């Protein structure tokens, strides 16, 4: 007991230090990648920290609801980036149900994201008129309704894909879901004829954004008069935070319920689970549909935020990326999924890109590295050395490294950590 409270006290100081340093730095220099990384580290540490729930909530609220929006005024790319992290985090939470809890290796998860995105893209643009006639796009207000419609349609697609696929086990399931994911992408690519539903490889644009007059009024009524260009980034940022909150709540409650226990039981031993009264196919379908619904909702947000969707956004690499997040964070761990999503997205969108730019600067500076015994002309750095292009290599290395050194993930679920470290 004593030891426990000591380690918690020990965690608090670096946490507060990171939070304060990151916040001030980010506010003073909103364009700095490093400042953002420190801020993000503070958010993730807050999430990972075990002690003092009230302090944790307060800290999280300040970091997410005050610091970032304020920094975002100066550099709206920050909002853009965090929305992207949030969309991935929500999807990682969905895939966590399927892979982490139920143990069903789904390699076509991006398909559900695609279905959600296209659901709004088609009806929120003139595209629907191409095969339905009538007047489209639907008014932007329908966006809010489509958040729910996407839950239902993607859950149904999840069941449809799951029905044949879930009769298979292990590796076979992985292969079939991979194929199904590709089928969805190829459909999106080719359903521009004979009837033009998806507009094929060109994709669909422009897609309606939700009207947010009420949102700016709301901001104004609490005394926040903000420039108009920040409304949408801020709106999407807050919307994604809200959705992640909801998805996390659903996730937590399901995983501590009969259904959640049934998922884990199936993952642990299918035969025993069936003999204890668990209907196999139905329980697996529920996992598939739940994961699909989370992903589909975020697809709608993605479509409205990007104003553009095309089959390119829903490739196998996307599915693997989300899987990497789940494994990095810790299979079956809710906080892990969020942390994994943040780290992978930042690495992908920010760190690798910055490294590339930095190498470029070095290359052009013509500086010479002189260690006395060894001289290196930096302009001779090979142009192929471009970290931004190595994303697949980097994620492959992460996966392998995790499997070797920390198979339970960065923030393991309670069950996994108890199981893997019972002897310690």
């Amino acid at each position: 007991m004593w030891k426990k409270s000591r380690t918690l006290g020990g965690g608090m100081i670096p946490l507060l230090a990171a939070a304060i340093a990151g916040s001030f730095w980010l506010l003073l220099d909103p364009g700095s990648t490093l400042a953002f990384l420190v801020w993000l580290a503070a958010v993730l540490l807050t999430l990972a920290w075990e002690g003092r729930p009230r302090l944790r909530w307060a800290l999280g609220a300040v970091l997410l609801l005050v610091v970032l929006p304020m920094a975002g005024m100066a550099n709206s790319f920050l909002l853009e980036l965090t929305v992207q992290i949030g969309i991935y985090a929500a999807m990682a939470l969905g895939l966590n149900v399927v892979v982490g809890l139920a143990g069903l290796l789904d390699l076509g998860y991006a398909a559900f994201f695609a279905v959600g995105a296209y659901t709004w893209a088609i009806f929120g643009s003139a595209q629907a008129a191409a095969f339905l006639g009538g007047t489209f796009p639907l008014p932007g207000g329908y966006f809010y309704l489509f958040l729910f419609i996407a839950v239902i349609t993607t859950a149904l697609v999840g069941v449809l894909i799951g029905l044949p696929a879930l009769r298979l086990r292990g590796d076979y399931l992985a292969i079939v879901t991979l194929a199904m994911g590709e089928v969805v992408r190829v459909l999106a690519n080719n359903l521009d004829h004979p009837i033009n539903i998806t507009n094929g490889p060109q994709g669909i644009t422009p897609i309606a954004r939700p009207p947010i007059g009420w949102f700016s009024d709301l901001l104004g009524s609490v005394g926040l008069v903000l420039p108009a260009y920040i409304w949408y980034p801020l709106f999407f940022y807050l919307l994604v935070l809200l959705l992640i909150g909801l998805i996390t709540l659903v996730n937590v409650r399901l995983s501590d319920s009969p259904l959640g226990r049934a998922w884990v039981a199936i993952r642990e031993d299918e035969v025993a689970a069936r003999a204890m009264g668990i209907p196999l196919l139905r329980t697996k379908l529920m996992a598939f549909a739940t994961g699909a619904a989370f992903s589909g909702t975020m697809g709608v947000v993605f479509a409205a935020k990007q104003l553009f969707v095309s089959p390119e956004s829903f490739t196998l690499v996307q599915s693997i990326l989300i899987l990497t997040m789940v494994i990095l964070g810790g299979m079956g761990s809710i906080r892990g999924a969020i942390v994994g999503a943040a780290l992978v997205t930042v690495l992908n969108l920010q760190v690798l890109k910055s490294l590339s730019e930095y190498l470029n600067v070095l290359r052009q500076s013509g500086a010479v590295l002189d260690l006395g015994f060894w001289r290196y002309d930096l302009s001779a750095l090979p142009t192929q050395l471009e970290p931004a292009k190595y994303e697949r290599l980097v994620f492959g290395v992460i996966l392998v490294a995790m499997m070797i050194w920390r198979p339970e993930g960065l923030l393991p679920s309670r069950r996994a950590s108890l199981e893997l470290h019972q002897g310690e």
Partner: protein
Amino acid sequence: MSRVPYRQETMRLEVREVSKRFGGLQAISRLTLAFEAGTIHAVIGPNGAGKSTLFNLLTGIYRPDSGSIWLHDQRLDGRPPHQVAAMGLGRTFQNIRLFDAMTVLENCLVACHHHLRSTYLDAVLRTGRFRRMERQAMQIADQALVIMGLGVRRGAIAGALSYGERRRLEIARALALQPRFLLLDEPAAGMNPQETQQLQETIASLRAELHLGIVLIEHDMHLVMGLSDKVSVLEYGTRIAEGTPEAVRNDPRVIEAYLGQEA
């Protein structure tokens, strides 16, 4: 799939003319057996006689090639395992199959849910019904754990239990199903003499207090003779003898089957 009334004194679990073949191997051939509620019925026989296969047939994990299986007046064969479990057949496995990553309590909770109806939405919204069902499940699971002497281990991870505890947890989990018939596949295998003695007392009390029908596959003859009301002997998938423990022990065919195996 309605449940049969609880204290049905005459309730029987019956296997009629059942056969099961694996490739060229006739594992069970035209086997007929009946188990009664409130009795302990041992099924013994040499290795490979088809005892575990019989359990897999009873619980829907295998489908018989021919013949039928009945619980009271309801046909079991052809139903998926989860339905058979819900109708009242709880079982353990010869090679222990626990949910290792879950706690001892959670292992039992998994088995409680077939008879508690709370829905997806109940769980998400944490309705009153959901909390009531969870409390009820917790009670059933705890009761099963206490019966098997695992009450103090409820928070431990199943994978961390000792061998004897794992065997007992398997029985507790099957009890949490609230079964009519409890099928135990070599429950004493790997236990030390004290643990076996303890197990014998527990099994006897299950019959007396819960009026369970217990089907016991066991190689420990001392346990079999000490517990059973009736013994059936299988060899090559057929029944070669049946009766009281004394009668079976002295049956020349049984002696031959066992000697033949050891020779």
